[in-house]
């Protein structure tokens, strides 16, 4: 019925805590799109089925290349360097657009698969699907897209922090977004950026205040619906640090989902 993204702006506000518990206590499939450091699997445990994710990068047949430099000129990301008698591809900078192979007049460039990460599916009380980007890779977007293909009609989606490309790609096809914030000036600052991004994307959202009770009144400053509040409670941090779900707040997470479902 709804694909609900959990994003934040500022990191460490509690996206994963909210996403994992919301999914678990409402028995909804969970997707972790924070592929640079996925951690929902610490809470939803089980044996995973893995699939490798590839992306296309150029491979140059040096016997056909005459070093004309057209591939370099059409590459927006400076991923190809052509010297008088040498050509180099910087795979990390490549965005897999295919322009180099398309425009090569000698047909010397072929696009080949390069493994950049994997998608893992865990079947526990709920199903968790998450992506893992290989260390050293520059762009998480292709892995995020691969995980997204498995999202059905109902889903809770844990998004990467920030408001740049990975977050935008993660929230893009959602029906609703929960922005998790904490009552701190830092979180307030980044929350405004995230709200701005979602306004521009045309995605409806509500704000969830985590660590509620800290001495900064974020609620009076934001012009958005508050969909829930999780108290600032040491016990929550203790459970989280042990990789446990928040069974004491099961009812709270059911209520939050009820509120959002009606949106």
């Amino acid at each position, binding site marked *: 019925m709804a694909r609900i993204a959990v994003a934040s702006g500022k990191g460490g506000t509690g996206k994963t805590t909210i996403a994992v518990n919301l999914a678990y206590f409402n028995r909804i499939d969970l997707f972790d799109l924070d592929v640079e450091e996925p951690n929902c699997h610490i809470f939803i445990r089980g044996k995973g089925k893995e699939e490798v994710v590839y992306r296309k990068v150029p491979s140059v047949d040096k016997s056909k290349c005459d070093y004309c430099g057209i591939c*370099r000129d059409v590459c927006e*990301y*400076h*991923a190809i*360097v*052509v*010297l008088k008698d*040498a050509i*180099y591809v*910087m*795979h*990390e*900078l490549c965005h897999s657009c295919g322009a180099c192979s398309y425009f090569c007049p000698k047909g010397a460039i072929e696009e080949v698969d390069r493994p950049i990460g994997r998608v893992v599916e865990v079947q526990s009380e709920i199903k968790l699907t998450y992506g893992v980007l290989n260390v*050293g890779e*520059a762009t998480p977007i292709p892995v995020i897209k691969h995980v997204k293909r498995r999202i059905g009609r109902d889903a809770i989606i844990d998004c990467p922090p920030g408001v740049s490309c990975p977050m935008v790609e993660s929230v893009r096809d959602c029906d609703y977004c929960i922005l998790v914030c904490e009552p701190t000036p830092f979180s307030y600052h980044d929350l405004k950026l995230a709200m701005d991004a979602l306004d521009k994307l045309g995605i409806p959202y509500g704000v969830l205040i985590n660590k509620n009770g800290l001495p900064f009144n974020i609620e009076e400053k934001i012009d958005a619906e508050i969909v829930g509040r999780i108290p600032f409670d040491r016990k929550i941090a203790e459970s989280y640090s042990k990789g446990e779900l928040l069974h004491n707040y099961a009812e709270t997470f059911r209520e939050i989902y009820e509120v959002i479902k009606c949106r």
Partner: protein
Amino acid sequence: MRVAISTTNGGLDDRVSDVFGRTMSFTIVDIENGEIRGVEVVKNEFAMRGGGAGIAVSQLLADKGVDVVVTGNVGPNAMSILSSAGIRVYRCSGLKVRDAIERLVRGELEEIRSPGRPMGRGRRWLG
């Protein structure tokens, strides 16, 4: 010998800048028998663009037929392209371009053979 020096506004009286890929300009100086024969200032179009500035700049200098680069620091990608192109790199920063050239000609500048800390995202050695 063509020497490219990383600079801000450019020219013989400007100072050598610390950065390579993101430097605002390059002052390209032609030297013959220890004498300055010509000076050209090239604005660095890649300074403010997205990733891969060091790579793009190395390509630009290779295309311009530069033999020597004088700058503060060079990242791994840029360093490997420069050395593939047969361009030698010498360390210098803060000095006036004019003085840096004098020292280069006298063989007083340290040659950079291994790269400094990478600035951007494209950290990789050429295979």
